[in-house]
């Protein structure tokens, strides 16, 4: 129901270009959905635009410092979105975010991550460079599909620095999975991943 509400407010339309929500044989591999980050609504919107059966086994990776404030945020993070809450500030060996993410993939579930690390402030929707977490996940879990996701208009619906939401229409585009190529090094892979998200700009807008 909350997923329906999110879709209603943001008018989010999911487009699957180059990847099917579910494989033809009905199975879904563990996936890492990686997207551009513009708004606090990003993770809920991606989560809400997944088909129900995928939604149940997909966990957004989110910042503990934000989602642990107040009972409502805690409830949403733990019981609704089933967020995987990670530390941003004090990372130690025992709370290493990557280990928690790997456990999710090991369990056959999927993740939603925002490799930019934080929301980009740019008016034109330019992305920040990707942080290396995606590379490590790809290295250690070659069986996981890395699905680029492009979010459009969420920076206009709920931009950073405001709590006032306006009901424009958002678009969510899922693209063809990428993988680390033979001999590709970290910076090249991260640049290509960023490019994969940027290229998913909806076709009509071009």
């Amino acid at each position, binding site marked *: 129901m909350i997923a329906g509400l999110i879709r209603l407010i943001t*008018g989010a*339309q999911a487009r699957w270009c180059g990847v099917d929500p579910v494989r033809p044989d009905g199975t879904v591999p563990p996936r890492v959905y990686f997207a551009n980050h513009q708004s606090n609504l990003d993770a809920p919107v991606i989560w809400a635009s997944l088909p129900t059966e995928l939604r149940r086994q997909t966990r957004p990776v989110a910042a503990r410092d934000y989602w642990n404030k107040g009972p409502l945020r805690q409830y949403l993070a733990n019981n609704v979105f089933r967020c995987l809450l990670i530390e941003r500030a004090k990372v130690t060996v025992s709370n290493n975010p990557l280990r928690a993410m790997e456990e999710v993939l090991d369990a056959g579930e999927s993740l939603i991550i925002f490799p930019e690390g934080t929301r980009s402030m740019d*008016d034109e929707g330019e992305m920040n460079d990707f942080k290396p977490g995606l590379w490590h996940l790809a290295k250690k879990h070659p069986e996981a599909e890395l699905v680029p996701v492009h979010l459009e*208009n969420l*920076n*206009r619906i709920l*931009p950073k620095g*405001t709590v*006032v939401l*306006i*009901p*424009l*229409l958002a678009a969510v585009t899922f693209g063809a999975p990428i993988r680390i190529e033979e001999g590709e090094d970290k910076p090249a892979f991260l640049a290509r991943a960023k490019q994969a998200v940027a290229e998913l700009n909806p076709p*009509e*807008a*071009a």
Partner: protein
Amino acid sequence: MTAIIATAMPSETAARWLVGGTLIILGVATIIGQILRLRAKSDTAPPDRRRTVANLNARIRAWWIMVAVFASANYFGRTGATILFALISFLALREMLTLTPTRRGDHHTMFWAFFVLIPIQYFLVYIRWYGLFAIFIPVYGQIFLAIRSTLTGDYTRYLERTAKIQWAAFICIYCISHAPALLTLPVYGYGDHPWGLLVWLVIVVQMSDVLQYCWGKLLGRRKIAPHISPNKTWEGFIGGVLTATLLGAALYRITPFNPWQAAIIAFTVAVLGFFGGIVMSAVKRDAGVKDYGNLIEGHGGMMDRIDSLTFAAPVFFHIVRFFFVLPAGG
């Protein structure tokens, strides 16, 4: 202003016939659409035709939805209609502003357009405060939106951004609100709610669209504005407007007009409907998209459905208000 008192009393029975007739026509259209679909599927029909048939069926489905929405609004009376059109304004504004590139500085301005201007405008319509709702958006709305956009201190492309939001508010809120405003007019022979006027306007304008499409498909040769709206042809325009005029005249019984008045007014709103459609197409082309959204399947977005109503509604409202309103009430 002296009212021209029409000869025929608008009749309840006529309205009932109209509803029944619409349902029958839609039913027949649905059956034909399904037969065409099966045909296009069975033989090795060209994909081109299959697409046309799919488009036709989607249009028919959308008409069912529109009729259902209108019928329920009718059931709930003027309150229902006002809320319905407020909702239509909301969805249209959402589509138009989504297409309009804005900057962060416009965020709160848009918030005001959605959550303050729409409720106030429709509230003014609802309480029949003609003197204020007729100027609210063009005067106070425009002034306010302009001021609000300066408060964030971003002057990049200021005039362009502000004008776009103002224009969207004018088209999507102000123009559309004149449709439910028809129900506030004390028209001769109607009592409190001249429902027939609204139904007549919507039927004439929307059928004019459909008829232009049909005539265009049948005989269309010479394009009117190939760059803006490649499907609009002179043949479709003339045929559609003339048949819509006849249709409007034939339906005079649900209006306060006599057949001649009905024909002239139907012609006027059909022509305005045509221009409303072509102007909204120009906005879409400018933004580089084909449809405003995918709210009603096959009908593009809400804006694609009501584009022809945007110019017709206010002018029709004023025609009725100037010439057909009871002297005591006007």
